[in-house]
């Protein structure tokens, strides 16, 4: 008959509210500016931007080359740039390498292409386990990779922001760029899932 223990430290929402009220009280933050910022990233900018980048890379090999060598500029070509996307790196999934992105120190995330991070991305368990047990985390997202695939974890500790370029699903040769973009999910661009992940990636065509 144990009673539920209160755990304010583990609730990012409570902590965020506390920080916000202190900053407002000290005159360091205008709550209206914060609302305007949240509105932009909740309603105008989001993972559909990243999906357009991925679809373009799938259909245009020259664009993909530019994206992998200078991601910030290539992403800007499609109109996406700004806060938390100033210095971008795109990492490509292949049959040999699966990339997974985490920020163990906080919640760094590429806003112009993915919007604001999901709650689980900011949670302590994801941040701790994505580096120490990435295959266990992937399994919980329904992603099982062959032992032959290298799992490559990117810990966003500095000013670079990372976007995963997922593998193009099989049998999508006849789809338009827009239809391809519709297949791309947020989670696949963080690297916790693959696309068409009902089949293991090791079975994909080489």
């Amino acid at each position, binding site marked *: 008959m144990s009673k539920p223990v209160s755990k304010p430290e583990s609730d990012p929402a409570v902590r965020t509210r506390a920080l916000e009220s202190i900053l407002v009280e000290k005159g360091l933050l205008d709550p209206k500016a914060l609302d305007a910022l949240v509105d932009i990233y909740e309603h105008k900018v989001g993972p559909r931007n990243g999906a357009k980048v991925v679809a373009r890379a799938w259909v245009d090999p020259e664009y993909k080359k530019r994206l992998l060598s200078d991601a910030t500029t290539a992403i800007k070509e499609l109109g996406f740039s700004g806060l938390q996307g*100033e210095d971008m790196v795109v990492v490509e999934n292949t049959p040999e390498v699966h990339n997974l992105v985490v920020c163990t120190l906080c919640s760094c995330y590429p806003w112009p292409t993915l919007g604001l991070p999901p709650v689980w991305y900011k949670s302590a368990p994801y941040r701790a386990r994505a580096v120490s047990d*990435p295959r266990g985390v992937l399994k919980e997202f329904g992603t099982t990779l062959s032992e*032959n695939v290298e799992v*490559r974890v990117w*810990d966003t500790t500095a*000013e670079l922001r990372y976007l995963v370029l997922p593998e193009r699903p099989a049998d999508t040769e006849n789809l338009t760029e827009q239809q391809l973009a519709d297949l791309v999910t947020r989670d696949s661009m963080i690297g916790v899932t693959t696309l068409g992940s009902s089949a293991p990636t090791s079975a994909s065509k080489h």
Partner: protein
Amino acid sequence: MLLTPDIVSAVASTGASARVAEHVAPRFRVGDRILVRNYNPATHTRLPGYLRGKRGIVEADYGVFAFPDTHAHSLGEKPQHCYSVRFTARELWGETASDRDTLRVDVFDDYMDLV
């Protein structure tokens, strides 16, 4: 600078890179084997604790950035290179980790030494 509603849209679309347009000699080159310092400041740092004392290989040089450990405390930008450094899962987590898996972490000049 206080963020006000009238400048939010402009700030969001332009951002503010922490890159510093200053020539600073890199302490490391791609391919260098490095040892992360056993560095435990009580103040702000962007060095994750799990890297202390670990060995890795420099994979890429991302260029010159403001150093967060001083910049966050208004102690100057102390511009320096930031690198992508590769660590094996085994180096960080021991023999039970996959011998195939690796990590890439962004590490500043001041966090490491040449082996």
